[in-house]
């Protein structure tokens, strides 16, 4: 097979990717023409015809992307191992849902998924862009064409030279139900970030300083929801199944999705500010550009191989680093350059005080100031995280690449979180126009008292330190203040307006959960011996037995597993730990510790008992099956016809025979018979047959068990430990020198990390409330945008 044929691989797939690139470029050209007609004069028939043509080209682009995605999926589902991608990430024996998710298990496929959502979202973008359609669609489409070009260079349809019978399979760490849902939501969020970016650039281009915010706001909220949900899902996945011990590890891959999300949160606030005040226009353009570039930069960090030595899950270099850098530079400098070009033209709209004729100062205690502070605070947080994550690159310039410890993030974020709590607590009491200090104090009094009470309760429950109490106090006050507002709006039947307040309630709840579950967790490392109750904290824990947990969640003994069921075949070994609480409640935990048969990797999944107040988290670390008292022997190789004296015993190998009569048994077995002449010290030579049984467990997995053969006239034994070809064996002599080689017995034990995480439920609960608030806001702003008519 020639190199070219291999590089093209599955031709219809690669052709679809190239077609997408061509249709994309053609669509941009068509929209440029439509834009010219639109700006030339009153948009008439000509404009409508040109826009209609451009839309048809967009549809062609989207169909090409959908076709390429569909083909890749089809090839994965039909096990076409000619494809490097299929052979690298899937295998025959995967359940359907994991097979489906191998689509995004590799780099090329996840780029494809990104484009897939981009293509779908585009249909809604041109409909909601309305009068801004041509410039928005040009930028929107351009934002994806770089990735399309990467896939043209590295199509996922490449062939291998030889076709393997089976694939490498999906990385066992990724074989989890979350793998099916988490990446698609994440990439939907990534793709949606192109929309605010497209609106912002189009606004600079078409000089539409305020109109873009109205149209783009629902999209920024959409990104807020999808990306936020994806990030939390990832955290929950890490917490529940990966056994990292927490939901957040400040890993580069996590950080690079958090930073764009934070930028989006800042953007949403900036947009509210601009919409209310018709000022502060530059901030939002900058934020939209930065949020989008952060996604690209994150992609570069995690996919170019620069972090390969620093992250648990960053990718290897695919040879696309240069391309990614080029794309980032293009959009970052292109966007900021256009902003600089227009800078002077963007109206600042100062409010003139009619009495003095001077520019009116906005009162300090106003919502405007609070919003500006919140935007800067969120940006500061994002910048600090970006700084930490980029450490390996920044330090590479001056010397050896280094990374920062996770304390860096925790230390820098404590003050951020405290200030955010304070801002959230104040915002319901301030109006855009400003308040007198006395009024704010009067209105905020109830919430303030609740905050003090909250800090008091926390102190009584064991929270110490001024910083922590301040943190809790502000967060509780923020929660109370915003709940007050939500109640007020619901009473006035203005549910559509509660979005922001509800989201802030959620943030305040999350803040409390994050602090308490993180700073006040208790961790213990214990070794549980089987059958021996051990006191751990206030609970009594007993490791009772090893069991198997099937993929559909039932607990079985090894002999109860049904080999005809896929869920049973994929059962994982688990340890049953009986946890008895001080009140006598019994919980059976099943932390899993098993070896992946394909990769021989040892995998661990924790088990968690969640209650409203506290999670009890059992993360298995090591399992020791224990050893009976055993005499360690001396090993030596012996060839056919060779004679050796070991530990005073003479051995001569006469020959080796194989008994294959049980090859068709289940499981298949082969017995090796070694005829050996054994001469004990001072005794007569005697012919013995030593047996070793090899049991086949899988395609290339077998288990051997040797039978001990007595050495006549002595307490010793010998056995075959390994076959060395057709005419040699390795023999172990046991018990001939019992003084020095006895190994003591060890009992069966399980080492487990036990962590209690107080109030972690607030992290999840607060998140739901925050997302509910975001959804309410999305509906409201979507309706506003739909109703708005903009010149």
């Amino acid at each position, binding site marked *: 097979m020639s190199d070219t044929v291999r590089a093209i691989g599955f031709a219809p797939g690669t052709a679809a990717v190239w077609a997408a690139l061509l249709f994309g470029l053609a669509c941009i050209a068509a929209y440029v023409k439509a834009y010219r007609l639109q700006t030339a004069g009153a948009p008439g028939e000509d404009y409508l015809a040109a826009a209609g043509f451009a839309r048809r080209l967009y549809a062609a682009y989207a169909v090409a992307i959908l076709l390429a995605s569909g083909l890749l999926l089809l090839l994965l589902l039909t096990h076409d191992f000619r494809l490097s991608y299929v052979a*690298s990430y899937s295998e025959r024996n995967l359940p359907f849902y994991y097979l489906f998710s191998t689509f995004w298990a590799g780099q090329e496929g996840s780029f494809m998924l990104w484009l897939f959502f981009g293509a779908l979202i585009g249909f809604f973008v041109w409909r909601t862009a309305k009068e801004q359609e041509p410039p928005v669609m040009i930028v929107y489409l351009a934002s994806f064409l770089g990735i399309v070009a990467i896939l043209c260079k590295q199509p996922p349809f490449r062939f291998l030279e*030889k076709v*393997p019978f089976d694939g490498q399979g999906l*990385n066992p760490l990724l074989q989890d139900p979350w793998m099916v849902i988490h990446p698609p939501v994440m990439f939907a969020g990534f793709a949606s970030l192109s929309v605010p970016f497209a609106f912002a650039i189009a606004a600079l281009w078409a000089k539409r300083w305020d109109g873009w915010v109205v149209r783009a706001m629902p999209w920024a909220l959409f990104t807020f929801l999808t990306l936020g949900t994806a990030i939390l899902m990832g955290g929950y996945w890490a917490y529940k199944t990966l056994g990292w011990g927490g939901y957040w590890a400040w890993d580069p891959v996590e950080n690079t999705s958090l930073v764009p999300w934070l930028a989006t949160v800042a953007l949403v606030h900036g947009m509210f500010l601009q919409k209310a005040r018709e000022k502060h226009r530059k901030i939002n353009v900058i934020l939209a550009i930065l949020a989008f570039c952060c996604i690209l930069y994150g992609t570069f960090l995690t996919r170019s191989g620069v972090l390969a030595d620093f992250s648990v899950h960053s990718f*290897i270099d695919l040879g696309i680093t240069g391309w990614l850098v080029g794309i980032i530079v293009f959009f970052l400098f292109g966007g900021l350059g256009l902003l600089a070009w227009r800078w002077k033209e963007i109206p600042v709209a100062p409010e003139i005080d009619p009495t003095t004729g001077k520019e009116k100062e906005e009162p300090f205690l106003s919502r405007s100031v609070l919003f500006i502070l919140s935007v800067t605070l969120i940006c500061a947080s994002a910048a600090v995280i970006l700084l930490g994550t980029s450490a390996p690159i920044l330090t590479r310039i001056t010397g050896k690449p280094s*990374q920062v*410890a996770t*304390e860096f993030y925790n230390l820098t974020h404590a003050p951020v979180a405290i200030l955010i709590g304070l801002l959230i607590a104040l915002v319901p009491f301030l109006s855009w126009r400003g308040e007198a200090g006395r009024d704010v104090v009067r209105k905020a009094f109830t919430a303030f008292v609740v905050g003090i009470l909250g800090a008091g309760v926390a102190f009584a429950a064991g929270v110490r330190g001024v910083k922590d109490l301040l943190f809790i106090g502000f967060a509780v006050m923020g929660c109370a203040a915003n709940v007050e507002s939500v109640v007020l709006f619901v009473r006035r039947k203005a549910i559509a307006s509660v979005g922001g307040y509800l989201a802030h309630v959620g943030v305040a709840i999350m803040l409390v959960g994050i602090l308490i579950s993180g700073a006040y967790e208790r961790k213990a490392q214990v070794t549980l011996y089987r059958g021996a109750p051990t006191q751990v904290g206030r609970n009594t824990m007993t490791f009772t037995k090893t069991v198997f947990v099937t993929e559909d969640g039932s607990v079985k003994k090894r002999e109860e597993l049904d080999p005809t069921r896929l869920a049973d075949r994929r059962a994982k070994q688990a340890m049953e730990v009986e946890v008895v609480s001080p009140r006598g409640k019994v919980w059976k935990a099943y932390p899993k510790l098993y070896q992946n048969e394909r990769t021989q990797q040892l995998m661990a999944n924790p088990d968690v008992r969640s209650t409203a107040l506290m999670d009890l988290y059992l993360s298995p670390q090591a399992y020791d099956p224990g050893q009976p008292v055993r005499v360690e022997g001396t090993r030596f190789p012996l060839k056919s016809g060779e004679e050796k004296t070991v530990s005073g015993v003479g051995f001569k190998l006469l020959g080796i025979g194989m008994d294959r009569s049980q090859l068709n048994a289940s499981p298949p077995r082969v017995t090796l018979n070694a005829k050996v002449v054994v001469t004990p010290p001072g005794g007569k030579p005697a012919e013995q047959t030593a047996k070793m049984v090899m049991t086949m467990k899988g395609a290339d997995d077998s288990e051997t068990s040797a039978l001990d053969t007595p050495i006549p006239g002595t307490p010793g034994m010998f056995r075959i430990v390994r076959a060395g070809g057709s005419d040699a064996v390795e023999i172990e002599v046991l018990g001939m020198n019992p003084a020095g080689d006895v190994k003591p017995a060890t009992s069966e034990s399980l080492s487990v990390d036990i962590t209690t995480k107080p109030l972690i439920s607030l992290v999840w609960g607060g998140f739901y409330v925050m997302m509910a608030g975001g959804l309410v806001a999305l509906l409201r702003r979507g309706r506003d945008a739909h109703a708005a008519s903009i010149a």
Partner: protein
Amino acid sequence: MKKAYWLGAAVLLGFLVLGLSTFTKSMTPYVTFAEAKTSKRTVQVMGALEKGTTRYDIETKTLHFTLVDPQTKDVIPVTYTDVKPANFEDAVSIVAIGRYQAEGFRAEKLLVKCPSKYQGEEVEKQYGNKA
């Protein structure tokens, strides 16, 4: 209004200063074994596991092993008091974060890199693909 911008700028600046100062403090530089032996601060070293040097003491939960620098062939003894990481013996390379003390490098954290991560590359090596 200008006041708010100034305040915002001050907040941003404050955090950047805080970030940068924490940044240099919490930095754990990658160093060679020779540098690690003389350095007093927390550093990270990377190397391959020298075969046959792994010893795990269950009582004290201490893992002893030796790392070899693949280039210079330098060695450094490492101790790690915690549960032995999964797949420790299969690691292609091990990153140890900690500091050097009299008896050897005391690791606070180990990052174990397993071959499975390079799965895609391996298939291409085995079945051939150089486009």
